């Protein structure tokens, strides 16, 4: 029933037209869709379609990723308030930019895409030191640490992902917490995530949402 809306919704998102996307959502609601339908049968499948398009060589640009995240986040937030039962969270992630890195856009896009997939995100902000990543992950009982870095030195340096890995090792947390990284240096070198000892990376925000959801389902829940 929502298929026709998915296409209209994605057209609006591709056009980076927020107002139109929100109108499509409203039309679907008027047509009898429930808030749960809107999230799980419109917003999420729309993102899946976009991932499929990207993997088939459709070139989504940064503005489109931004808008996908922005709208998914807004719509999900407003629909969640109207859910009949609180949704089951898939898991929790803490997310920040690497030490010395002030570039916050990637983090925002990834977190926006995660919300609709029912992943709880704790935003640690920018310029985050390794011990803060780990301390917060433990305090929040998060299963994934997401680290965004836009420059080679913040991606590869000892105070970035490598520092977080070292702490996870020292504190015996590796069976509980996965690290995912992203940002320009990883796109310029798809093998870099291994060099910095991350568990995974993603090339763009929408794919990141999927990869993280995948990591979360692999991991045992915190006791």
């Amino acid at each position, binding site marked *: 029933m929502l298929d026709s809306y998915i296409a209209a919704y994605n057209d609006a998102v591709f056009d*980076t037209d927020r107002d139109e996307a929100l109108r499509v959502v409203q039309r679907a609601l008027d047509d009898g869709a429930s808030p749960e339908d809107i999230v799980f049968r419109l917003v999420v499948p729309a993102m899946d379609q976009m991932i499929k398009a990207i993997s088939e060589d459709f*070139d989504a640009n940064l503005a489109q990723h*931004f808008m996908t995240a922005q709208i998914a986040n807004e719509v999900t937030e407003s629909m969640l308030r109207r859910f009949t039962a609180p949704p089951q969270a898939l898991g929790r992630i803490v997310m920040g930019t690497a030490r010395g890195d002030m570039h916050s*856009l990637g983090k925002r896009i990834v977190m926006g895409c995660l919300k609709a997939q029912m992943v709880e995100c704790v935003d640690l902000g920018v310029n985050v030191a390794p011990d803060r990543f780990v301390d917060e992950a433990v305090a929040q009982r998060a299963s994934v640490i997401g680290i965004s870095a836009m420059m*080679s*030195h913040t991606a590869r340096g000892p105070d970035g992902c490598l520092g977080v890995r070292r702490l996870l090792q020292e504190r015996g947390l590796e069976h509980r917490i996965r690290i995912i990284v992203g940002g320009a240096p990883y796109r310029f070198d798809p093998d870099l995530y291994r060099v910095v000892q991350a568990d995974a990376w993603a090339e763009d925000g929408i794919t990141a949402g999927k990869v993280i959801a995948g990591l979360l389902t692999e991991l045992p829940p915190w006791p």
Partner: protein
Amino acid sequence: MAMTALQRLAAAATRRPADRAPIFCNLFDQGARELGMPLREYYSRGAHVAEGQLRLREKFGYDNLWSLFYVGKEAELLGCNRICFADDGPPNVEHFVIDDLDDIASLEVPADITRHPAFEQPAECLRLLRQHAGGTYPICAYITSTMSLPALLMGMERWMSLLLMGPVDARDALLARCHEFFVKEVEAYRAAGADVILYANPFGSTDTVSMKFFLSHALPWIERDLRAIGTDGVVYYCGTSRINRVLDIVLDTVGIRTYYLSPFDSIADAKEIAGGRALTCGVINDARMIDWTEDEVVAEVRRMTDAGMPGGRFLIGTGVMPLAIPEANIRAFVTAARDFGSHDGGAHA
């Protein structure tokens, strides 16, 4: 054929005979290592940066010199008072001049940039570069375009929101201020002796915005920027985002005659699009030069020159070279570019 680097660049731009293709190797933070000082100290003096630039060029033998310290300098001219320095990478803007939309109205464009304290050291750097290398080596200045400058003043995150979702009057007011600044900045750098203006505009790439948005919003500002400053010595550069899809349009409507590709643009395609009309700059994926062996660097240069050298009008370049690239790989890059970029029977023939 004995040529200066400046003559070599002019020859490549106009397709006159030359000994080899020009090589732009963009080393910035490496200068501090040359002078044996921390980055913060290095960037505090124009004399250091000039010395660093001259020594690096001398050491590796490429063709360009930079007056750029770090891009955050532009934000300093507009009131940024905190830069985050690292030991192992470029300085970044830490204080955003525009924190909320009300700050746009109070954004002050200096009446005369050349008298602004934040211009003093770059001016000194330019004076020294001119004195030691003026007329011989192209002196490059990096100037952020009108549409990209707000990213430095408020961060990419908030700029993307404002640009795509409005409010439109705040967006337009900010762009108007940035344009005013942009024009003054180019004038100041040209007057101080910059030969090449790297027009830096990630929003001029369809990796950043859609084609529709590019045509309706980005391109009109590019036209305005270039109408104001003219196309002389201007290089179209999108922060190493891809430009092949817009190259034709920019060439036709704006008339810029030099294009700095992304490592992910096909050089052969770019040359076909630019035809005999413009200078194509092929760019190595320098983030990978950190881990590549020397042989891998050479093979990559070979791949680039095979695609770019036929028909001339080609320049071999890098992005912003990370500090972690081993010197041996920088040497391998320049040596291979000199060899394979040679027009008169070098290793390429």
